[in-house]
Every structure is written in structure tokens, then in C-alpha cells.
């Protein structure tokens, strides 16, 4: 069964460093998402991406964040200068929402980011 994959599973970084989180969405999906979950809290939407551009972003997704689909398979989230409060689990998701039909989002296993 197709699945969303994410690398790395864990990332430890120093405050101020840049990190890139990687995701491989399900191959025939068209919409891609990043969510994050601070420890003990609910999952929050960060950004959605469709047709090679951001379609919506949340207030959390400030200038320190960027997303990219550098090739036909990968989808990345970059944090330019990490802060302590960026420590969280980051989830990538994808869905095949086409023709006006709303479909299920499938989530990857997450990357646990720790900023020291």
C-alpha cells in the first residue's frame, strides 16, 4: 500500500541553524501539506502546496519557513534559523483532491525536531 515517507525520523540541531525536513508524498497525489505538533498539544496546520505553489499558510508559517518541491517526488520544509520553540513533531501529508472531490489526507510518520 502506498505511503508517505519522511526523513529524518529525528533531528537535533542548535538554535540558529537551518534544517531541512524531507517528505516523499504518495506518487499520484496532487496536494501536499505540512503540520506540526508541539509536545502534548494538538496537531496544527502549517502550509498547503498545490501546482508548485503555496495555496494556504497559517500564522505560524512565517518568513523563517519555506517549502519546495525540488523534483517530481520530494517535498521539503526548510526552517532557516531555528528557535527553541520550533521543537516539535513535523508531519507531512498528501491527498488526491481532484475534480472537486475531497479525499482523505495520508500522513507520514513524522520528523521529531529538537532545537537546543
Amino acid at each position, binding site marked *: 500500500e502506498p505511503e508517505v515517507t519522511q526523513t529524518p525520523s529525528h533531528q537535533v540541531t542548535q538554535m540558529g541553524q537551518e534544517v531541512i525536513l524531507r517528505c516523499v508524498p504518495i506518487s499520484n497525489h496532487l*496536494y501536499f*501539506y505540512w*503540520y506540526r*505538533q508541539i509536545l502534548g498539544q*494538538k*496537531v*496544527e*496546520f502549517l502550509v*498547503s502546496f*498545490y501546482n508548485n505553489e503555496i*495555496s*494556504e499558510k*497559517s500564522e505560524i508559517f512565517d518568513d523563517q519557513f519555506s517549502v519546495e518541491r525540488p523534483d517530481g517526488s520530494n517535498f521539503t520544509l526548510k526552517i532557516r534559523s531555528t528557535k527553541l520553540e520550533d521543537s516539535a*513533531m513535523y*508531519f507531512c*501529508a498528501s*491527498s488526491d*483532491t481532484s475534480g472537486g472531490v*475531497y*479525499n*482523505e*489526507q*495520508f*500522513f507520514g*510518520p*513524522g520528523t*521529531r525536531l529538537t532545537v537546543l
Partner: protein
Amino acid sequence: GIQVEQSPPDLILQEGANSTLRCNFSDSVNNLQWFHQNPWGQLINLFYIPSGTKQNGRLSATTVATERYSLLYISSSQTTDSGVYFCAVENYGGATNKLIFGTGTLLAVQP
């Protein structure tokens, strides 16, 4: 924006017991999904259920979209059912398909 509330916030069960988790939402939705977050933090898709009833083994779910709630039933609970259960919705007429998550129900199943 749309509000998603889950109840109860915490639940302790003995193995073999049944339970019902509830998700209330404040506006019309296109999509509703139930997830189980396991102890490793992974979000496991349980149901995609914007309306109607579905069953998968010991789990079943019902969404009554007109009354803006969804229920997740767990029967004959097992210790492996422990974890956090999240409901997430996609607001009807929203700009994109983002999911808004509830605060979750923390379930502990004791042997």
C-alpha cells in the same frame, strides 16, 4: 474559524471494555478523519468519514454532518488501543483542504 471539540479529554478502560469518543464541530465540513496517535507519535488513519457509518474490525465511526458531530466506537478494547485519538475536519468552503484538529482524547487501556 471552525472549532473542533473532543470528549472526553481522558479515558481509562479495563481491557475488554467498550468506549465511545465524541467529536463536535462548529460548522459544515467536507472531510472528517479520525486518527490514532501511537506511543511513537505516528498518526494512524482510522477513518475517512465526512458522513455515514463505517466499520473496521473492532472500531466503527459515525458522522452526522447535519448535527455536526462524529462518534468513534471502540469495542473489546485492548492495551494496544492506548494512545491519543484525534478528530480532524476540513471546513466546507475553505480556501484549501487543510485539516483542523481537535485536542484529542487520551485513552489508556489497562490489562
